[in-house]
């Protein structure tokens, strides 16, 4: 075996060190000189673009490896995701019947028009992208990192998106809300758009119509104090939600009060859900009225009755799916700086999975009292 002489080895090392130093120095000089053009108007060279895309794709795939996918075929999940897509995603990514905004098209990279084509991602990879966003692309991270449940709703919708035409999309995203055609003067002088981007009713319903997804709370007839406190908590990021935080922070304090009064004055929608099991309702009723002293669970009704303080929500007639989801969020450790969440979270953490099911079913089977019958 031939040995390399010591002097040649030294020379080799020196060359490597010198080479690395000049690369670092050269890079610094290039950045310092400002010769590299950061203009979004110029685009990337094809080869750079290919390398960046290659790196991004693999990064997403690797980082999404440990995520366990959930069943996504629930209509409630898809509808909720569609409604958020309309206000949070469609501006940049388009949707059936909604063109990508020309401003978004001028971004670099320009966001993919998801109504036309979507790269082939697995569920868990889509989840990772929606939750974490992508550096240097303008794709933002999910506002409330602790709300995986909301991210999954968007993923569920993205899976459905390729099958939707413009009418089906509009129906789903607007939740049956009909936006009347505006007069020329209205178009010219108001900010309202036919996309109804910030309309609460797309999710929460209006008049006699309840929420279009059972994962969305019924606001009809809730106390004004509770609705205002919830909106204020969302607006100040004290209550985490990637869907509600952006919308609530757009509203002024006066707006929040007015919209709270609107929903507080609405009669409860439709009829209660038929209970899946009478035993579950009975178990839920016992828990709601007597609590479970052994597990240190106080009775729900002591705070959630019609004469409770306005800051507490009324639960009668609430959707079981929404209630169970909210209780599970707390149980799984959601922390919140909202003052009422601080009271409810420890109680929810003491509930067993069975108790969460029972109590949700119980409240969803109750008739909500008409507004005005409450003690204000």
């Amino acid at each position, binding site marked *: 075996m031939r040995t390399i002489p010591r002097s040649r080895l030294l020379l080799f090392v020196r060359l490597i060190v010198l080479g690395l130093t000049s690369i670092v120095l050269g890079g610094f000089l290039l950045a310092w000189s400002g010769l590299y053009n950061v203009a979004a108007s110029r685009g990337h060279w094809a080869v750079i673009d290919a390398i960046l895309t290659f790196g991004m794709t693999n990064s997403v795939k690797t980082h999404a490896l440990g995520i366990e996918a959930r069943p996504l075929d629930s209509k409630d999940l898809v509808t909720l995701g569609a409604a958020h897509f309309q206000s949070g995603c469609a501006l940049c990514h388009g949707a059936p019947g909604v063109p990508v905004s020309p401003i978004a098209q001028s971004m670099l990279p320009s966001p993919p028009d998801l109504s036309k084509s979507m790269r082939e991602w697995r569920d868990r990879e889509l989840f990772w992208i929606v939750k974490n966003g992508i550096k240097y692309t303008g794709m933002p991270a999910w506002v409330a990192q602790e709300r995986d449940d909301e991210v999954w709703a968007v993923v569920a919708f993205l899976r459905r998106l390729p099958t939707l035409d413009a009418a089906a999309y509009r129906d789903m995203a607007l939740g049956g809300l009909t936006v009347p055609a505006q007069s020329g003067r209205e178009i010219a002088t108001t900010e309202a758009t036919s996309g109804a981007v910030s309309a609460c009713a797309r999710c929460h319903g209006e008049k006699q119509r309840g929420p279009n997804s059972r994962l969305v709370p019924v606001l009809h007839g809730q106390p004004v104090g509770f609705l205002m406190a919830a909106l204020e908590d969302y607006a100040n990021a004290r209550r985490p939600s990637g869907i509600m935080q952006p919308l609530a922070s757009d509203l002024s304090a006066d707006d929040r009060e007015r919209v709270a009064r609107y929903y507080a004055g609405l009669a409860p929608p439709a009829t209660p859900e038929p209970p899946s099991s009478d035993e579950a309702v009975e178990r839920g009723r016992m828990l709601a009225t007597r609590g479970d*002293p052994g597990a*240190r669970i*106080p*009775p729900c009704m*002591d705070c959630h009755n019609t004469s409770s303080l306005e800051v507490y929500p009324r639960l009668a007639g609430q959707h079981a799916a929404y209630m169970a989801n909210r209780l599970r969020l707390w149980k799984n450790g959601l922390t919140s700086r909202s*003052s009422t969440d601080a009271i409810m979270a420890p109680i929810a953490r003491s509930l067993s999975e069975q108790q969460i099911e029972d109590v949700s079913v119980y409240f969803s089977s109750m008739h909500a009292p008409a507004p005005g019958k409450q003690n204000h």
Partner: protein
Amino acid sequence: MRHARSFATIVASSVVLGGCGRDVQSMLAPKGIQAEQIAVLAWLLFGFGIFVLAIVIAATWLAIGGSARSRRILAQENTVLTLGIAFPVVTLTLLLGYGVWLTRALLDTDRDQNAVGIEVVGEQWWWRVTYLAPDGTPVASANEIRIPVATPIAFKLKASDVIHSFWVPSLGGKVDMIPGRTTHLRLTAERPGTYRGQCAEYCGGAHALMALEVIAMPASEHAAWLRRAAMPARAPQSDIEQRGQHLFLGAGCGACHTVRGTAAAGKLGPDLTQMGARRSVGIDTMPLTHDNLVRFITDGQHVKPGNLMPEFRFLQPPELDALAAYLLSLKAMDADG
């Protein structure tokens, strides 16, 4: 008011001094029959220990520097048998017998039918106290135990969550409270007074703040007090008290707390029927004042970290004033502090 303040000073300083120099919480200053027996036993042990130590020192000194004769005596088989085996066996047996006899009386093993029964349940981190009214109805209270002087009290001790230990050093020995079991303790206070007790078994985060007071009062006063304590809570009188009660019920306080005679019937936390007659807030954490009540309601996790009562931070100052006024009004009309 002056009394309340000087009391606060005593509580505060006894927390700092752990009983030294004050006799509200010291086994060296016994105020009850059982505590006296324990003190006698302790002094006896201490004196006997000194005696044995003196013998050991003397024997060692003789063995090293004594005359040949004394060393010979020390080395004799008889000496070893007497001092090394017979003496310890006899004295230790006597001490053990005395100790067992003493503890037997303390632990209330013979269940004196004349003794006044009081049940105390250790909870994280407070004491659930249940008296029996003369007609046999249980009267729930918390944290403060009022007993008649010179009457044997039979304590039934239980625990609801983890092991606690009930110890009022000025009145007697300590007995563990064990979940799923009932232990017994007999105490008799000889003089009226306030005696401080503490949980003496580490029971979680706020263990150090789990204290209680035993207030010994003349038997006739005690009977009158118990009659008053068994009555429903005093109804709110003024506007502010009524608003306070409305808030108390509306905020769901009744989910965990009982105020007898109202809709509040929760059993998870301390009974508040006589809240205004108590001397402390947050279970002996702070003296009972309007400001301390407000502080405990809104900032309880800083006052007593980990305690199970959530903070009600959404309540506004006027609401808190009303709530505190209501709670302070909860006492039988002629109850003395």
